[in-house]
């Protein structure tokens, strides 16, 4: 167990980073290597100018307005989940550094910073997690069950696992942010520091699951993160 924890804390993170970025590069290379689209595969109506089309694709990508029109329930689930994820990711900046500029601007002390983070973080986490259960339930319902393959369950369970271990730290422990900073700075500089004690046992599991996500990310359907806008531009070519 201790060995495993050691591996997840100090060895596999480097591998995960390499596989994540290498994998994304490989994914893009694989796409780029294929022959281009055989014709204009546009869907209409579409904006006239090239810039207009790019903007339209980006707006649709970030708001999913096309989905809202045809399937409001799925839109709500998907949109809120992604929005929560975005907030959560932004919040995690605090694990590595801090929003020094923001705090200064607001003139907030330590107390206020922590209080704000606790509230905002919990809201973001909730926005992320609740829809995940809806998306999971959908997988067994109606015609979606015909489409569901093991990968879909794997991803959803993985994200739920990450979310729950995260909540464990947030709600049942008080994480010393300086301890986190020290740990990650140590990883980055190869001068390893102890695993943050204040975060409790969930920390190592949370960290390990995120690494699993990073390793998986470029090779499965989560590549829709970068493929989305490319595919949308095909439909606006």
């Amino acid at each position, binding site marked *: 167990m201790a060995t495993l924890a050691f591996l997840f804390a100090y060895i596999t993170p480097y591998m995960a980073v390499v596989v994540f970025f290498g994998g994304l590069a490989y994914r893009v290379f694989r796409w780029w290597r294929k022959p281009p689209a055989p014709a204009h595969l546009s869907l209409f109506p579409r904006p006239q100018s090239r810039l207009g089309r790019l903007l339209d694709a980006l707006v649709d990508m970030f708001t999913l307005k096309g989905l809202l029109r045809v399937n409001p329930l799925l839109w709500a689930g998907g949109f809120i989940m992604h929005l929560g994820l975005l907030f959560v990711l932004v919040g995690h900046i605090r694990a590595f550094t801090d929003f020094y500029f923001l705090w200064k601007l607001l003139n907030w002390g330590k107390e206020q910073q922590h209080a704000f983070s606790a509230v905002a973080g919990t809201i973001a986490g909730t926005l992320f997690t609740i829809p995940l259960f809806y998306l999971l339930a959908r997988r067994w319902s109606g015609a979606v069950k015909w489409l569901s*393959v093991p990968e879909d369950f794997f991803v959803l369970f993985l994200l739920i696992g990450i979310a729950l271990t995260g909540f464990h730290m947030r709600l049942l422990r008080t994480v010393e942010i300086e301890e986190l900073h020290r740990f990650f700075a140590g990883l980055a500089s190869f001068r390893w520091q102890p695993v943050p004690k204040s975060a409790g046992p969930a920390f190592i599991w949370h960290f390990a699951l995120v690494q699993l996500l990073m390793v998986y990310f470029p090779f499965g359907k989560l590549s829709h993160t970068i493929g989305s806008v490319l595919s949308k531009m095909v439909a*606006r070519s």
Partner: protein
Amino acid sequence: MLAKFLDTIRARITRPLQYYQDICVRCGACIDACHFYVASGSPAHIPAYRMMLVKKLLQQPNHGWKGRGILGWYRETGMADERMVTELRQALWECTGCRRCSVFCPFDLDTALMVNVGRYALLQEGMGMEMAAEIGNAEVSKGEIIDALREFYVDQVRELEGRIREEWGVSDLRIPVDEPARVLYVPVVGEHAIIPLAKIFYAAQESWSLSLFTATNHSFFVGDIEKAKQAAHWIVEEARRLGVQVIAYAECGHATRTLLNFWDHWFGDEISGIQRVSVVQLVAAYLKEGRIRVREGAFDGPMTYHDPCNLGRNAGIYEEPRLLIRAVATDFRELTPNRELNWCCGGGGGMIAEPGMLEVRMKAGQPKVEQIQRTGARWVVTTCENCKTQLADLSERYGLGVEVRGVVDLIADALV
């Protein structure tokens, strides 16, 4: 099993297809888009499932195989067994290529492109719409024997010309064939595609010529893009020979889509300087410019317009047909939904050419039937030959009692 199928597909995976295979999140937003699925409830008709089937087969290690292993289970790679082959045929042939599912998909994923490539691959295995493929071949070889056909064709056109002159009482109406002109009009098979235009061009005093060829391109339906190009190329040659400025395609969905969206890729510089339009756009321009005039309210009764998938969401022609209809109708009612969300009629994708597909397309037309019934229309107007045939068949089968018309023949009937 299916070795030729898989090799053909592998050789034809383009960049968009690779995106689609990789990024589809199987969210199912496309499920309710497909009229085939809505009517049948069978999984092979779910748009994303069609893509998944092909993907599963592509992931089989070296075609024939034993033992799936954990990775095989995880990736849901499939064995090409009987059931899978049946599903595959259903998935790839029972699709009208309408791309309604692409409008629903949050990534605008184009299932019809996968289907198109898959069809060509299935034909290599001898599984599929041979009839449509045969007609496609005939369209390609027509160009080689056109000199032998010309005289016969011209005779027929002269005879038709005589009849229109008599019916209309105009002795100077002409149907020019193979003559230098401003507009080359490319019809579909049958005089119903020529008569209205002969009248409209006459009224607009247009300099036009009737093509020796037809716009329809069945090779496109079966995914044989090389042959589709060859068939279309006869028209490019004709247009250049006659020095026309405009190529106008008859009311025909798939052909108009290829003309407007694919020809740049197919023919590049060869067609530079030649304007390409649907005849509906041309006639709408005549009306706007006052080159033709129509009797207002010539059609007195509820009328609705069916956006053909290939003219609507696949080519962006939404306004011109409506402009023309409003000019002659007293009670124009939109279908709901309409435009890019309009239901496909269920007759596209070359199915009309295939007698064995009649039952399939009658079933797939059910959402359309309900849509039409809700409008209470007496006339259903559209701008695609396939849609017209399908809508007329649906009307008969389901007792809709509607009359199916093309936009240009409404205008021809209402000319003053």
